[in-house]
């Protein structure tokens, strides 16, 4: 990655304290257009705090975030979302009793045109279901036939699919995925990895947080290694072995000099 390309999402000097615990210690972050950037780090390294500052769930004590070169400040996930950053949470943030279509549009429902929508606030179910069906089939989630099906009737992988489809459908700039394969079996994990490639193929950059090295090395273009509250290296999965990446992550191996420049 050369310096002539501007990162789509960048952070400099992010710091966050929880009481006396330092979760983020002047951490940097760069995501370039069209790439899958994996973020790895040991438990407690602060990677989830880093991701939360980018998705608006946590407000950093100091440091700045730039989206498309413009400085941004997110006080809530809603603001990050409005700015074009969609997050697929580890918990998925789906409402199990509601349908697939209702979940896709949760918090941004479409209303009927004219008096029905303006005065009676009536939902435009048909438009929402058509859109939902379109988005799910675009991502190859055709096994889900009935868009009116409650999310709780779906398998774990299908639910992940719905959450990813929601993010992909509405993300204007960036998708953040937090441990999307952690709760899934081998077959379903592979489907989700395909889904990540599919979304990337459509030009959306993805931040992937994962503990699973085979998955990270399978789909990532670059790997951001987080340690002790900061980014200590960015490595290329094609030139480094998974065991070396883990060694850098745990401090057993010094980060490569070139890593920070990348």
């Amino acid at each position: 990655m050369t310096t002539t390309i501007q990162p789509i999402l960048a952070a400099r000097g992010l710091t966050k304290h929880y009481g006396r615990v330092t979760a983020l210690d002047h951490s940097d972050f760069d995501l370039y257009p069209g790439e899958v950037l994996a973020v790895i780090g040991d438990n407690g390294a602060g990677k989830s705090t880093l991701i939360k500052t980018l998705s608006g769930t946590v407000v950093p004590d100091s440091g700045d975030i730039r989206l498309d070169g413009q400085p941004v400040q997110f006080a809530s996930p809603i603001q990050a979302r409005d700015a074009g950053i969609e997050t697929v949470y580890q918990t998925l943030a789906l409402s199990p009793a509601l349908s697939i279509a209702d979940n896709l549009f949760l918090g941004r429902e479409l209303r009927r045109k004219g008096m029905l929508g303006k005065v009676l606030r009536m939902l435009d179910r048909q438009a929402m279901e058509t859109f939902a069906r379109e988005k799910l089939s675009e991502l190859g989630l055709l096994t889900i036939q009935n868009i009116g099906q409650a999310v709780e009737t779906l398998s774990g992988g299908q639910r992940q699919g719905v959450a990813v489809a929601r993010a992909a459908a509405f993300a204007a700039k960036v998708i953040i995925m937090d441990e999307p394969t952690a709760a899934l079996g081998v077959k379903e994990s592979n489907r989700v990895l395909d889904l990540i490639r599919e979304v990337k193929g459509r030009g959306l950059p993805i931040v992937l947080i994962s503990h699973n090295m085979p998955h990270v090395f399978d789909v990532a273009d670059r790997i951001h290694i987080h340690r002790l509250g900061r980014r200590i290296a960015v490595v290329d999965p094609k030139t480094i072995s998974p065991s070396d990446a883990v060694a850098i992550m745990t401090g057993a191996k010094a980060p490569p000099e070139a890593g920070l420049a990348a």
Partner: protein
Amino acid sequence: MSRVSDPEKTAASDAAGAIASPDANRHTPAQRLQHFLHANPAAVPMIVVAVSAVVFAAAIGPKFYSAFTLTLILQQVAITGIVSAGQTLIILTAGIDLSVGAIMVLSSVVMGQFAIHYGVPGFLAVIAGLAAGGLCGLINGLLVSRVKLPPFIVTLGTWSIFGAITFIYSGNETVRSQEIDQTAPILHVFGNAFHIGHAVFTYGGVILMLVISALLWYALNKTAWGRHVYAVGDDKQAAMLAGIRTGRVLVSVYVVTGLICALAGWALIGRIGSVSPQAGQLENINAITAVVIGGTSLFGGRGSILGTLFGALIVGVFSLGLRLLGTDPQWTQLTVGALIIIAVATDQWIRRASA
């Protein structure tokens, strides 16, 4: 979709949903029943109303199965039906409101005091009462959403507070029916009845309860607000991350319920004739009973207004039916108690369908 509370539509979409679950044919009849009930929460109370009405009709004969008796049931459940419509909203958000009865009585006392003692025109007295109900709901809602106290504790407190304010404010005095008729007949409007043959329909009983239920059904199923109410009750954290302002949804639910309780207070004046601070002492328990028997889950996110309407009717059918059979009123209490336990046990069983 209307998976949560539209029996006809969901039955159809369930049939289509079978395509997505290849193991649908492996289910036993009991499991299929479980899934059907899971998708149609109002089905159980509807069946119970129908069956119990048929059984009582068979046991009592034409005395029960008359237009007069059946409309009497509607009149007797009216107040509980209105209050429990509001209670349904609260319970759908995984909350509970113990103060609904107290809000209802406080609102009716405010209407009576304004109209009779302050000499305010009747409709303004009604507006003052509605405002009092809305304010009570707002206090509950803010304590639940902003101070983040458990709804049970908040409304246990406000139940006592609103009740005490009612007695202090009214000086524990009843406003008599004649006084109301002379100065503010509008307060009695829901007591007026019209007759179709032997059927007696009070406005409070038929119209207000049905209109409120219909409006809430529409709001819950056809508007974004309704979807948000279900989402907040289902999984509040998920709803928040999905971009729903959960605090606002909660406050709105408590305020709407406060207003509905005030409307019930207005209807209560029509029903009992006078304005009494002693009235409706058990209305909070009656409302929770109707909601629970109506199949709405106390864990939130599941249930329907239609179910609550049936729940209120079940209590009404049993109360009147057992009375016409000449049994001791304690048998009614015993039966209602058993129904609550059976309803919650059924809910638990149905919820397992999703696991």
